[in-house]
């Protein structure tokens, strides 16, 4: 990010220059290009190449907020967006804490978010990469078919300007390949997937993506439905990352002040096992979601959330911070020009332990290695803490991995699971998600099956 000039910054600057007396105005301007290639049976199934752009404008006056957006940067459209946002102001309820972020002096930790090698990568080579991934995957196991192999990349530019003195712009690009698999055995079919991400295609590991996609599909062939009982679960790093995503909702400062967090009023108390230390650190360049600024244009920063099981604090935007009587933690998030900023964790990381997953499994008397979960959005309620999700994986008996199992659920409550953590693995995996993965052992979870 920089505060220099760019075409988008000029547009944002021009909008806020029209602010009337007593008005706060924010303009968020974005432009992006994307390429999306899907291969099926050696041929291009689809090739998508597209550009998009747009602007979102927030106006705040007398404690009331109005917002409007349009998916174009046409001059006349921008004028109409500003007029709409102004018109919308009148219908909000006055809120003494409403307001835009103000520069807070926290220094930006620069990130390498733009990769020239990706920007220069030829289209034909992108197609070839996806074809090669399909070929490698199909060749990895005779039982495996490829559902589709994909290459995707995107590049985006954004600029933000506010009448409170925020003025930043920057650009970012990223790419990934992914493959979906089907494995057949008689009447039974199971599915898998694999992926590789990078700042440029040169960082891809196609062989690993192919191997994982084949393995995920074949390992469930012949899986049985397990009996119902209480067990110890070992979560794969990929599953732990999703579990941390659920926890993030309770650490969201806006949810806390609005009475929707099970961690409210518990700062300084023990909310998890002493083995559990959690930070949100988008300044760590290894994180897939590493970034230099947040959705309001403030510097992204490292925040300690839970230290040895003790709750340290919450993440905030400037609005939630003002209401909570604290300062922004640089955790404003926004989903492009069509939305207004909310609050969220940016790059969660659990402090790793020392041992490998195999060593963790060797200590489990009776349990399950959970390799996939299904239905985190439907069976987990981060407000009440009820946790219930479909799962598949491998049984563990006396420290040995056993039969594959599927079509069962694991259930507990978030509150209990955090206290029931037995060990954190040392196998950190910087997955393409908001949280890094690591193996996690949790005791006393109910498995429901046959």
């Amino acid at each position, binding site marked *: 990010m920089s505060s220099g000039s760019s075409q988008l910054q000029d547009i944002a600057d021009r909008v806020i220059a029209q602010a009337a007396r007593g008005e706060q105005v924010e303009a968020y301007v974005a432009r992006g290009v994307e390429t999306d290639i899907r291969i099926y049976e050696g041929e291009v199934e689809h090739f998508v190449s597209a550009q998009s752009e747009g602007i979102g404008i927030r106006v705040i006056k007398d404690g009331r907020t109005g917002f409007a957006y349009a998916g174009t940067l046409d001059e006349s459209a921008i004028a109409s967006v500003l007029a709409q946002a102004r018109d919308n102001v009148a219908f909000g309820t006055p809120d003494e804490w409403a307001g835009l972020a103000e520069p807070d002096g926290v220094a930006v930790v620069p990130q390498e978010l733009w990769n020239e090698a990706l920007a220069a990568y030829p289209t034909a080579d992108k197609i070839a990469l996806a074809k090669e991934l399909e070929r490698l995957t199909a060749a990895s196991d005779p039982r495996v078919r490829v559902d589709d192999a994909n290459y995707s990349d995107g590049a985006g530019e954004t600029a933000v300007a506010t009448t409170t003195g925020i003025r930043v712009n920057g650009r970012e690009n990223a790419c990934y390949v992914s493959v979906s698999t089907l494995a057949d055995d008689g009447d039974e079919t199971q599915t898998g997937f694999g992926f590789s991400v990078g700042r440029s295609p040169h960082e891809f590991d196609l062989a690993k993506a192919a191997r994982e996609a084949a393995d995920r599909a074949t390992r469930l062939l012949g899986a049985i439905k397990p009996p119902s009982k209480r067990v110890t679960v070992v979560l794969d790093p990929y599953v732990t990352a999703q579990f941390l995503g659920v926890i993030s909702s309770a650490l969201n400062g806006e949810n806390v002040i609005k009475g929707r967090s099970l961690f409210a009023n518990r700062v300084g108390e023990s909310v998890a096992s002493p083995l559990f230390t959690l930070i949100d650190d988008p300044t760590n360049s290894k994180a897939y979601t590493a970034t230099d600024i947040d959705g309001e244009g403030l510097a992204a920063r490292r925040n300690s959330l839970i230290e040895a099981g003790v709750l340290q604090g919450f993440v905030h935007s400037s609005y939630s911070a003002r209401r909570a009587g604290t300062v922004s933690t640089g955790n404003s998030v926004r989903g492009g020009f069509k939305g207004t900023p909310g609050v969220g964790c940016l790059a969660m990381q659990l402090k790793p332990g020392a041992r490998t997953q195999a060593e963790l499994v060797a200590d489990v008397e009776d349990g399950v290695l959970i390799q996939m979960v299904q239905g985190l*959005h439907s069976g987990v309620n981060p407000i009440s803490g009820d946790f219930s999700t479909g799962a598949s994986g491998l049984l563990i008996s006396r420290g040995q991995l056993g039969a594959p199992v599927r079509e069962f659920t694991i*259930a507990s409550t978030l509150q209990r699971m955090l206290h029931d953590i037995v060990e954190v693995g040392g196998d950190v995996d910087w997955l393409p998600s908001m949280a890094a993965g690591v193996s996690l052992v949790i005791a006393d979870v109910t*498995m429901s099956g046959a």
Partner: protein
Amino acid sequence: MIEHEVLERVLATALRKGGDFAEVYAEDKSSTSAGLDDGRVEQVSSGRDRGAGIRVVVGETTGFAYTADLSEAGLRAAAEAASAVASQGGAGTRVVSLTRSPAHVVNRIEIYPDTVGKAAKVSLLQRVDEAARSMGGAIGQVSAGYADSRKRIIVANSDGLLAEDEQVRHILRISVVANGDAGMQTGFESLGHTVGFELFDQHDVEELARTAARQAITKLRARPAPSGAIPVVIKAGSGGVLFHEACGHGLEADLVSKGASVYRGKVGELVASPLVTLVDDGTMAGEWGAIGIDDEGHPSQHNVLIQDGVLTDYMWDHLRARKEGHAHSGNGRRQSYMHLPMVRMTNTYVLNGTENAEDIIRDTPYGVYVAKLGGGSVNTASGDFVFGMTEAYLIENGELTDPLREGNLIGNGPQVLRDIDALANDFAMGNPGTCGKDGQGVPVGDGQPTLRVKSMTIGGTAA
């Protein structure tokens, strides 16, 4: 939005390098939304999305590009980008002559959203907030969202098709948090239809808010749900999401043709209990998934998918129908002009049976009664699916007893369809839903009468 002749010239441009098929999909969508939380109307938002997506199909390959520039120059540039896949081409000039399809009007709109003042929209939220909070001191938090949209679409393709539609939708969502000694519980209700603002004259939004509040308050005394395989009775209209996940996705021709569905090759076979007749119906006026035409320009249809337990047909989009020589079924849909269409459901529902709902409960000695379903998801290849229960009760000796805490149910689609052993005569549509597939969300509806599955796995924690 775009002149007839411009569309013809853009389609000709799209096919200049060859190709079997070209299509222009254009949309112009205006939307308004407002959110209330913590007693405040936080903000009113206005949005405008306008653009076109152009695809060119060459053999099995599709090229696609989109643009927010609806001028002829902008559309031609997108057409050229989409035609890059047809590089072998050299087909020369192909003339496309469009014939306007007769209008297929499904949804009747009385009050367009742009004729209603923002104050009236916001006041709905305030009424909801007041009604929910009137349910007592246990109500800790209320949030409500209002949204309307008016979308005009035009589809033109190289087969000469030219069709238009207008889709107007209104939705209200209410979330309530109740506080009790043992923590917090939540309640949720929504009301959404493909109709105008008259929706809110036809429904009691205060009662909807009180229902959401009652749900949260009732759950304060909920006990942990059972764990393991037991009979499940599902209330009418609580969410046909069961069928959406258990078989709907598996009947989408794109997944079937890739061998990624457990229902592949099963047309004509008994795939469900003979009690079950399943329909996907885009013509169901006013419902959340109702459309005049699909996003490939074909009229929506009433399609019977399962008749008395026997699989009769899949759902189709243009590409799959063309490849297999099958007729269109009006199921080619997309999230927006930035997305490629694919096979999607519209309103998916199970027809009435003959039993009385009370009798079904009375005939169940022990089980779970699900009064409201949450979301769900399915692996179409294995058939394994989950869905959440957000309001449920224990059935003991044929009567509803304690409320249960939330959880997922898990089952295998083909097995669960066979295990439906009772179907009532009290059909109702469920809440408006957004179906996600391959990263795209589209509005869908679902419905079903009260029914019983003789055994499903409940993901609770109680023994």
